[in-house]
């Protein structure tokens, strides 16, 4: 990542302009080559985004006529306690899972970053849940969350923590705890992979000199590793925060957003508004609010990262 960015900035405009108009690489051919990709992105992201701004100002239904209603949708969603609650719930969920994902991912990365015997196997296994994906993991979790028969309850009963009859999926708090645990377990592998690639670019001489200074493990991590991979850490946190803010699948499969709307995330609130209540205008307004929130979070994280330099 960092390497890519650096080579970008190093390339000066002078070398670009000095280059003569190429015969083997005519500009028109270049444009033609990139056109399909640009077309995809413009048609399926750019245009919908622009159209969305207009639609959010109408009472757009799935079928039938619609009319311009100004900012009414925005007033509606901002005075709608359900939308506010879904935003708060999603922020809470994000706050709960981000730390554990980073810490677990970091510890796993420490374990597999060198070429010790078995490190390759461990890497593969730790990353496996992420590859399988939260959709499939959630379906398997449905089985294991059943009272009396599911593995979660059996193990907890065996450890003497519960009596094993907990109905995880019909309680807001319990459902949230279960989903958080599943997600931390399921996606830490991605953080591990990202941090590991960052750690492997640190020259080993740096560690040797730290060792000569008599620094212990934690001091070496804190004073050498963490500062050197700060950008990678920031990148992995941004990826994980955005992923959590957009959470949908695991909630849809495990709790269906319930009981009531206790575990309804923002994306699920948008989905329900659009495709269950068929209020596409209001749903689109909610979508745009989410785009802005994600944009703000991303910008804030980039800014915080830049601040320390």
């Amino acid at each position, binding site marked *: 990542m960092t390497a890519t960015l650096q080579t970008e900035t190093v390339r000066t405009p002078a070398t670009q302009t000095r280059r003569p108009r190429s015969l083997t690489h005519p500009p028109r*051919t*270049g444009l033609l080559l990139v056109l399909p*990709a*640009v077309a995809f992105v413009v048609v*399926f992201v750019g245009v919908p985004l622009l159209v969305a701004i207009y639609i959010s100002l109408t009472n757009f239904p799935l079928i039938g006529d619609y009319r311009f209603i100004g900012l009414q949708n925005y007033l509606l969603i901002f005075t709608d306690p359900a939308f506010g609650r879904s935003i708060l719930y999603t922020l809470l969920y994000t706050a709960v899972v981000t730390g554990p994902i980073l810490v677990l991912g970091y510890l796993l990365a420490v374990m597999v970053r060198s070429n010790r015997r078995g490190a390759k196997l461990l890497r*593969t296994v730790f990353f496996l849940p992420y590859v*399988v994906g939260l959709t499939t993991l959630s379906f398997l979790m449905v089985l294991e969350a059943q009272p009396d028969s599911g593995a979660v309850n059996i193990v907890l009963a065996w450890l003497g923590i519960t009596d094993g009859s907990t109905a995880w999926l019909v309680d807001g708090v319990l459902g949230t705890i279960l989903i958080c645990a599943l997600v931390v377990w399921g996606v830490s592998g991605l953080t591990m992979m990202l941090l590991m690639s960052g750690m492997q670019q640190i020259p080993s001489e740096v560690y040797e000199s730290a060792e000569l200074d008599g620094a212990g493990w934690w001091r070496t991590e804190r004073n050498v590793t963490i500062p050197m991979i700060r950008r990678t850490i920031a990148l992995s946190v941004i990826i994980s925060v955005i992923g959590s803010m957009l959470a949908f699948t695991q909630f849809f499969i495990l709790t269906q957003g319930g009981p009531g709307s206790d575990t309804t995330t923002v994306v699920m609130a948008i989905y329900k508004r659009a495709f269950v209540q068929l209020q596409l205008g209001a749903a689109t307004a909610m*979508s745009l609010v989410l785009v802005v929130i994600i944009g703000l979070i991303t910008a804030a994280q980039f800014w915080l990262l830049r601040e320390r330099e």
Partner: protein
Amino acid sequence: MATITGVERDTRVKQLLYLVGGALALLIFIVPLAFGLFRSVQPSDVIVAAPDPATFFDLTLENFGNLFAQSNLGRSIMNSLIVSIAAAALTAAVALLAGYGFSRFRFRLSPILFGIIVVTMMVPFQAILTPLYLQLNAMRLTDTRIGLILFYTTVNLPFGVFVMRNSFASVPAELEDSGHVDGAGTMRTLFSVLWPLVVPGVATTALYAFLVSWTEFLGALTIITDPDLYTLPVDMVNLQQGAYGQIDFGLLAAGAVVAMIPCVILYAALQRFYVRGLASGAVKG
């Protein structure tokens, strides 16, 4: 991967910690997945009963048989395969051309167009779900496999363009020039001279696009409403939420295992490419 040298020197204590921690972590990560596999060969009534040593190990393959006989999951597996393979191929093809164009050709719009693609990478599709649905609807692409394929291609394309641009950038210019000296055109040069060198990038892109499409849920749930066109994850929700009557947990476990298989096989076989793709930095959450 092969060039990595030991990052740190090991002490006895570290070796012991690695051994114990590694073994423990291995169990925590592998046992739940292995148990999922085990569940799929248990009969449904055993899955939903409190574990009884007398019946717990009565294993059967009937869940997999029922998967095809009693439910529509066979058809939805086919749909998922068609859509994911097509999306992977299309993403790889479009990204290959764009990567070549962006890294090797200089034209005035290049920085702007590349900027557009990078910006799209930051707009998550979940956040533009409704406008995207309306767009596909206006193009009569909802409830079609083509619509879903185009959607998945768009989702994966920015990552693919990034990876392919980096792949082409690492090919020495002299090599490409030798192709041109022989009088080969742009496409001949691309496919005869450059192709072997950028194949790893193509593999990364296609693998990534396949895995994303194979496991994607929200988009498929929104774009497809015709049961004949359901993808595997969407059909499994119907199974789970009792659309076929009583929930059959055995079917659910078997379906989840079928969903896992391509992911695990592809990842095990092409791990090298996948990890390099991730490390090249353009990963979407």
